[in-house]
């Protein structure tokens, strides 16, 4: 007899910096929210999209889940704000952004540029000014961002799906095989070597002609489209 109870899975990876290792945990958590259980049941993210109830989604999570992890899941599952999704700064951004050193609004040259253009513009009144700001926020949400490896902030927010999870595992295995135990002069060198490897890997065409990046972007776009469908049907 084989029990269908919880299975402990141990994975061993190598990361160039501690921050990357810690972010990989967040990345996997994001993947898990979009993972559909067997059968026709919805993912945790879909439960929240359709009900707006984070508690209901978390009630599906096994009770042995550590409280800290549950807290992180709760934060990730929160409904998005109607304006700019600035929480994207604190998401992992998936495998394409796993090794990018942490950055935030203060480093965001794109948003700073958009904001200063808005500030320099003359508007008919305060209402028009606020409307323009709201439009700008939506534009930022939906525009590929150079610091998110070309993902839009919305694509970062929605998290990766099962295909990206598989690809991330593939890359991390390859990375460990190449660099584990190898001496580096500094953290910076290890980081740059890792990122160089990543950017080559993401651009390599697969059998179907799609690159890894194409696959990831398509999956995240599909998740966003599904989210939009569920949200509109649940209203």
């Amino acid at each position, binding site marked *: 007899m084989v029990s269908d109870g919880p299975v402990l899975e141990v994975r061993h990876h190598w990361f*160039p*910096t501690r921050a990357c290792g810690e972010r990989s945990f967040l990345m996997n958590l994001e993947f898990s929210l979009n993972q559909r259980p067997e059968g026709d049941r919805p993912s945790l993210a879909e439960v929240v999209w359709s009900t707006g109830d984070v508690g209901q989604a978390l009630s599906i999570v096994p009770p042995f889940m550590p409280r800290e992890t549950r807290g992180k899941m709760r934060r990730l599952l929160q409904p998005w704000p109607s304006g700019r999704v600035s929480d994207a700064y604190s998401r992992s951004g998936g495998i*394409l*952004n796993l090794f*990018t*050193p942490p*950055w935030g609004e203060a*480093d965001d040259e794109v948003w700073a540029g958009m904001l200063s253009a808005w500030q320099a513009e003359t508007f008919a009144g305060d209402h028009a000014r606020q409307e323009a700001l709201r439009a700008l926020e939506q534009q930022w949400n939906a525009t590929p961002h*150079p*610091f*998110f*490896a*070309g993902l839009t902030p919305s694509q970062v927010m929605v998290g990766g799906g099962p295909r990206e999870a598989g690809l991330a595992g593939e890359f991390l295995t390859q990375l460990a095989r*190449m660099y584990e135990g190898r001496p580096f*002069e*500094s*953290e*910076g*060198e*290890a*980081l*740059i070597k890792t*990122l*160089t*490897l*990543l*950017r*080559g*890997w*993401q*651009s*390599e065409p697969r059998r179907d002609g799609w690159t890894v*990046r194409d696959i990831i972007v398509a999956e995240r776009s599909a998740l966003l489209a599904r989210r939009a469908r569920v949200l509109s049907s649940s209203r």
Partner: protein
Amino acid sequence: MSRTPRKRKRTRQARSRATPAYRKNVRQADDILAKEGVDIRPDNWQQLALDWFVPDEPERGELARYIADHEPQLGVAWAREVLRLEVFFQAKDYSQVIAHYERALSRYPRCALVEMWVADQFFRHQGDFWRARRMYRYAIEHLPDQGKPYYELGFMSYLLGDFSGALGWFHQAAGRVSEDDVEIAARIYYNRGIVRVLAEGDREAAIADVEEALRRKPDYPQAQEALRGLRGKIRWVPW
């Protein structure tokens, strides 16, 4: 009334960050300078800083302009810190370069040349991309004719996965690099070639760029390998 104690506290904290290893390295740098017969005085500090830190044009002219602009705030003590920095660079002690920049040189008006060189250590040694990025941007603002900061921002954009942004920076770097800058020119053309394929799929242009890199620097194994790859089947894994 309350400002003075806060300031004192900050100064004490800053001093306490000077580790014994840092102080030892500074003493060693001073020993090296003494052995070289360097005697920094009020009548020669400018000359020594120029001769040691930037012996060649156009950087020499840039530093001379910086000194002229900020002379009252500089002097013998500043020149000593610059010479120590140069010793750390020559010793390839990059952690010490960063520590010395933070502890000693950040007290003086920002010098675009110093920022440009120290930024490399933040970027490539410490992996602090965002600090380095601000420093390179400062260098571009004050040294618009230098190709190096454009190149570094191009390389950083590539690492961040922004290939079209990288291409833009590399174009700007290529427009500024001179025939004499063999090392940096070769790197600009090589990297632009690689990114041209990734961003635009333009293999012909990429081959032309890598060939240009090899014309500038024939002994460039990565470029030789890339050229073979571009003429055949591309393998992107960089080992």
